[in-house]
């Protein structure tokens, strides 16, 4: 199977689905020039003229317009250049997009996808390095997707583009260049199915997005010590595959939950508390969380590198948990 970067996989998913479905359109800042800062939308303008619109710097306008078009028969994909700027469109996301189906008693589908480059990369500091999954999963009506591989990214974006509900699609900037095998045939990955990326007996690491490759690295490092780590990739946070996570915890009886978000109030809190509530009897040890430091992202390389958990932290935490 050919190896592809997550960036290319996302681009393929967009092109293939736009080919299939005329109602898909793309909106965002600089999405034609260079295909956006991460070049994901490159080539759409040539191939699907008129179906991609480069917008003013108007995040509220972009998201609002995308939603309006979605209510009127289109299937818009809006790129918000950095998820940090989604804060400029939060009413549109939370009070409108998430709620229109419910408030209107199910009169309308809401097929809109927001693509949201996320996380730290290249010392972009406090206003360009955030993760907001935890906010979105707190809002009923939104679906939240966090792919960790090129393969998953393509399959999940396809499902997003075929669904009827709003999708917040978190693209971790540092993962754009990560490569994995991506088949040429069409496939889609259903929402609500976690993926056991590595089987193991001793400890479960429930990991999201950029923490998945680190969890796999940690598992490899721990294997020679006889510690057998299972890595569960959440893939979608809403809907969430509780069954898969609980099954793993019931097998290993020890669990670390990890993501790149600020720890306080992050996704890891939701997952850890689900386990503590519904899987308590299976636990032989505290539910450990590993997530980002509770600070705005600092600029200096000497500080930035301290914020997000590293493989070595996962290794240490795992040792501690089995020790």
């Amino acid at each position: 199977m050919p190896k592809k970067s997550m960036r290319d996989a996302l681009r393929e998913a967009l092109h293939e689905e736009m080919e299939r479905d005329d109602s898909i359109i793309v909106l965002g800042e600089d999405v034609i020039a260079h295909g956006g800062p991460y070049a994901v939308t490159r080539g759409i303008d040539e191939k699907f003229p008129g179906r991609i619109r480069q917008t003013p710097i108007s995040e509220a306008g972009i998201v609002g317009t995308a939603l309006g078009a979605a209510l009127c028969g289109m299937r818009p994909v809006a790129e918000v250049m950095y998820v940090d700027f989604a804060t400029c469109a939060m009413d549109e996301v939370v009070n409108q997009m998430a709620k229109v189906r419910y408030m209107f008693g199910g009169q309308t589908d809401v097929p809109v996808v927001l693509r949201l480059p996320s996380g730290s990369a290249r010392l972009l500091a406090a206003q360009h390095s955030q993760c907001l999954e935890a906010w979105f999963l707190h809002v009923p009506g939104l679906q939240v997707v966090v792919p960790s591989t090129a393969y998953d990214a393509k399959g999940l974006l396809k499902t997003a583009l075929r669904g009827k509900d709003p999708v917040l699609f978190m693209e971790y900037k540092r993962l754009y260049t990560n490569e994995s095998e991506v088949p040429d045939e069409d496939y889609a990955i259903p929402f609500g199915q976690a993926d056991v990326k590595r089987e193991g007996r001793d400890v479960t690491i429930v990991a999201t997005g950029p923490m998945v490759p680190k969890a796999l690295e940690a598992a490899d490092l721990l294997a020679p010590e006889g510690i057998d780590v299972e890595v569960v990739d959440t893939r979608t946070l809403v809907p969430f595959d509780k069954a898969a996570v609980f099954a793993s915890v019931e097998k290993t009886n020890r669990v670390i939950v990890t993501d790149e978000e600020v720890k306080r109030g992050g996704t890891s809190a939701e997952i850890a508390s689900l386990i503590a509530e519904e899987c308590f009897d299976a636990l032989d040890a505290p539910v450990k969380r590993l997530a980002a430091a509770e600070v705005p992202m600092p600029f200096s390389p000497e500080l930035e590198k301290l914020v997000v958990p590293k493989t070595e932290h996962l290794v240490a935490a795992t040792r501690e948990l089995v020790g």
Partner: protein
Amino acid sequence: MPVEAPSAEKLLDMYARMWRIRLFEEQAEYQSSQGKVMGALHTYIGEEGVAVPICAHLQDTDYITSTHRGHGHCIAKGADISRMMAELFGRSTGYCKGKGGSMHIADFKVGMLGANGIVAGGFGLATGAGLAAQLRGSGQVAVCFFGDGAANRGPFHENINIGAVWKLPVVYVCENNQFAQWTPQKDVTLVTDIANMSPAYGIPGVQVDGMDPLAVYEAAGEAIERARRGEGPTLLECKTYRFHGHNFGDPQQYRTREEIAEWSDNRDPIKQLAAHMRDAGLLSDEQDADIQNTVQEEITAAVRFAESSPYPTPDELYKDVYSYDIG
């Protein structure tokens, strides 16, 4: 291209719709005073001369977006008042199955994309509706109703600019009733003529007396035709006045009884339309009484329908959050 004057039939229909709004809301306020309707209730009474003549130019396939003050827009666009009343009563037969209430009534079948509890919440929806219409080349238009207060929010600026630069078929209609809740417009902006903001977007700005339904009909006709021809948005400002409080229960300390009477006695859009139709020989006393009686019966039937409808069952709570059952 001058807008054709409305036909006699159209005028009668407009007139009936204006009464439908008026009497529906008087009834809603009464039901609210009885504790049968709960939650926020913002009436459109006094402003009927805006939505009705504008929507008279629209088909069911055209779109409108609305505000927290949405009943008038719903009725003007052709929504069914029984399902509206049932919604106010929180019943399962309401437009939103009782999940929305006054601030969220929508009727997608007639292109009414929802009342909106967020001031300026409609700008993005209307702009997107216009984008969808433009991409399909369907000739549909979208009308975005908003208040003078909403004009001070960012989405006004962002979306009108998008609509303008993409030449979308949208008419942005400011219902300038001169107050935002309890705050007079002149206290919060130096530019009280919203139409004068249109040069900032390179689109026409038109101001019209919103108490004069025929003037509104004409101005809206031009703006809507312009949009249908692909020439882009218009900012249409209708100067108007709400006769009742911001919401039901508002003690209205921010304005005088005299000011209210000045508008409601002398400039009531229903009276103005009636006078015009009478002068033109298009409305007899009998017809007038007939229309009002018919509407009153509709309202009575709507209340009966609402009252006799069941509340949503508890299992409805988790429905419609997503298209599927999230478990």
